[in-house]
């Protein structure tokens, strides 16, 4: 459980400004969330304070919904553009599972973990077509994760941004939280944010920033919102079953719709051009063949896992 308060974190924690060692802020999220923007604000702030700054990101594939990360390092002298593992003073995650991915980069003895609990479920988490397959998203709860770090905040920044009327300012809420972990005056943060956001959104961004700071003042002791639902995604209540495809040969007219449309390519036409199962072990029981067969020649049965014969069910 994080015990440190706001004042603790601003004096004892992340900022290494007094020493020669650079301060390391790792900002992570998903393509399109504004990771690069947040890191630019961070870099501009540090540069304004007279530090040498390096900010490193890798883009290209990032736009495609992939994981995005940006290393920001500042201090009297900065060499490597990337933060060595275990040396991030702050890990700021715009998405929950991305925060978990990078947790081993955080210095867990002195670092601060800040994460939006927003879940962006990647299509890959929904790929397993097998009967009873669970969602492939991370199952760790914020409470578990916060118990593993010295100081951590898990908040629903996206929800707070929506309440402010602009979902895009979630990252500014997180900047507000970040500002409590680093030694820069609040006015400087506000000035940099004002410089970087579109003129029409200055007001809502500044409010979002203050909301973030206020959240730490309210929840800093425990590090998370009690009222937000953090339960992991639900699994299937019944045991998974085994599918079996039954083809009424006499009704098949060789249109091969089922062969072409089967996502697992389980079917083929035999030497008489009648549909048959070529790879029954790959069948997931999706019933697409059954639904698409124009002649009702296909039935898909769901058998208990241990049953073998077709007679076990109807």
């Amino acid at each position, binding site marked *: 459980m994080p015990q440190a308060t706001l004042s603790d974190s601003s004096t004892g924690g992340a900022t290494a400004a007094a020493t020669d060692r650079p301060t390391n802020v790792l900002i992570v999220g998903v393509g399109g969330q504004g990771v690069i923007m947040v890191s630019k604000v961070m870099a501009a702030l540090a540069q304004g304070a007279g530090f040498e700054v390096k900010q490193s990101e890798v883009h*290209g594939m990032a736009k495609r919904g992939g994981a995005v990360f940006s290393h920001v390092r500042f201090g009297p002298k900065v060499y490597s553009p990337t933060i060595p593992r275990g040396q991030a003073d702050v890990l700021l995650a715009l998405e929950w599972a991305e925060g978990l991915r990078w947790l081993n980069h955080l210095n867990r003895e002195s670092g601060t973990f800040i994460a939006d609990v927003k879940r962006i479920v990647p299509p890959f988490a929904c790929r397993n077509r097998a009967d009873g397959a669970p969602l492939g998203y991370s199952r760790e709860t914020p409470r578990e994760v916060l118990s593993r770090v010295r100081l951590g905040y898990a908040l629903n920044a996206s929800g707070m941004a929506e309440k402010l009327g602009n979902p895009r300012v979630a990252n500014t809420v997180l900047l507000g939280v970040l500002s409590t972990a680093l030694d820069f005056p609040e006015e400087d943060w506000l000035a940099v944010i004002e410089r970087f956001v579109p003129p029409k959104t200055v007001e809502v961004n500044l409010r979002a920033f203050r909301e973030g700071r206020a959240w730490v003042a309210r929840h800093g002791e425990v590090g998370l919102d009690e009222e937000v639902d953090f339960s992991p995604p639900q699994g299937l209540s019944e045991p998974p079953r085994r599918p079996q495809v039954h083809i009424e040969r006499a009704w098949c007219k060789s249109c091969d719709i089922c062969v072409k449309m089967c996502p697992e390519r389980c079917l083929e036409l035999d030497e008489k051009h009648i549909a048959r199962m070529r790879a029954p072990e790959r069948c997931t029981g999706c019933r697409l063949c059954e639904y698409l067969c124009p002649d009702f020649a296909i039935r898909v049965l769901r058998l208990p896992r241990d049953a073998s014969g077709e007679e076990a069910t109807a």
Partner: protein
Amino acid sequence: MQETRTETTRAAPREDVRPLMGNEAIARGAWEAGVEVASAYPGTPSTEILESLARYPAEQVSVEWAINEKVALDIAIGASFAGVRAFCSMKHVGLNVAADALMSFTYIGVNGGLVLTVCDDPGIHSSQNEQDTRLFARFAMVPCLEPSDAQEALEFTRLAFDLSEEFDTPVIVRSTTRLSHTRSQARVGERVEPPRRPFIHDPAKSVMIPAHARARHGRLLEREQKLRRHFAAEPFARVERGRADIGVITAGVPYTYVKEVLPDASVLKLGASWPLPERLLKEFAESVERLFVVEELEPVIEDELRKLGLAVEGKVWFPRTGELSPEIVRDGFVAAGVLEPPPAAEEALDIQPLVRPPVLCAGCPHMSTYNALRSLDVRVAGDIGCYTLAAIEPLQAIDTCVSMGSSIANAIGMARAGTADRPIVATIGDSTFLHAGIPPLIDAVYNGVNITVVILDNAITAMTGGQHHPGTGYGIRGNRTHKVSYEDICRAAGVQWVRTVDPYEYGSLLKTLREAVEYKGVAVVIANRPCVIDPVRITGPALRVEQESCIACQACMNLGCPALVWSDEWHEGHHKVRIDPSLCMGCTVCAQVCPTASIQPTQTD
């Protein structure tokens, strides 16, 4: 938040220090050097260089997207002949395309200075290989500068033009993904325009016929020797004295890793990684007890030291594949016994990282095309672009991907092999087709093979972030220009069967593809739908899935659209599907493949 302004193009007051991305710094350096003609084909991580240059005034510098890297380099060469400073940029594999021109031009040398920036991709963040451009520099016998941060990127690029003219050679500035995409402070200067030179009529120098070329080859050797001596001094080489027992020779971004993990070692930092200053290398080697080389990818410096008979440790401790990092460099020095092992790591957290590979965008028109191809059970030769993502789950519809424009000729070869158990289809994006797809299409018709070519025309170079090309009708500065017609190109090549189809109309798409595959000869299908994010993000009313009638068949999920995710409801052991309204742009393809008509427009009151 959204970004509103750019940092690169304001006029420079004294002591103007700006945070610049490596690529912006390279563009700035070229601009300050008075470059007048610049050309490139986009390619990660080099794309932003030309985009940054295009923000400088059109009266000062002509900036254009070229159709491919060879054309870009040839344009720069032409400008050099004509007496102005010329620049082109490309990713590492782009140099393979441009190599033909480079290998001759190195014999010719320059009139106006010519610099090419080549961005390598160690670690293969967004490429098909991780070749080392320094080997190309050695091969072409041209100097190769290697900056380690934005300041050096700016200065080295500017200096490269002077070098080019002084030594009568094209100059390569080698960047890497890490440098290109790291922002650090750089002190910027003013633009200095050197006087334009007249065209020099000198066929013995400029016309590479055998008699002339033989005479020029020997000059390359002399040039290389002169450059070796030149590169022994600042800013191309710098000795940082530290411990006498450990010496490290390094260049580029790996220099920063060495300084990070071994700050007290003696370091010879090379700013030019080809040709290498032999005498300085020897002197440095003799001044230290143990000599290390830390370099990314190939042992270029290390091999040179060995040729000089020097004892050196390099790739024995530091990997030859992948990108280096502070951790990897530290681990190398630990293994070499130079550094103490770091204190036993805290128990690593046993968190299984979420698999989140890049995906096609919600509404991407490529999804339906590949979904249809998959259902036709064809052999697909793929190409380079966003659509290569169709090789992975759930589309799994691409069988091969080699290099820019390979798909069509690969398909010809597959057909010629005579072993095909399925119809053979080549899929190629619009920009890739223009880049290197037209010659193989002509070849296919000329040699009369039986293949289908699908041109995925999304009217932009999408993968690299949305650059214009001759098929969009716009130039890099947003200027209107001629728009090529793919149908006309195909017909001119002799293709008899050409159809254009809208991939958002799944039924006609499937029917057209089926006819194309059944056609005997070269059939071309142009799947024409604009990219959903570039040049403008296309939005529309989101669809939704009616949970009562969804039978969880996953037919829509098989498109691989990121807007489609599982809902918390189940049906017969499978998750029902829901649509994320913040991502859905209303293309309706999922609704067209749904067997129960459960995907419907959202109610608008």
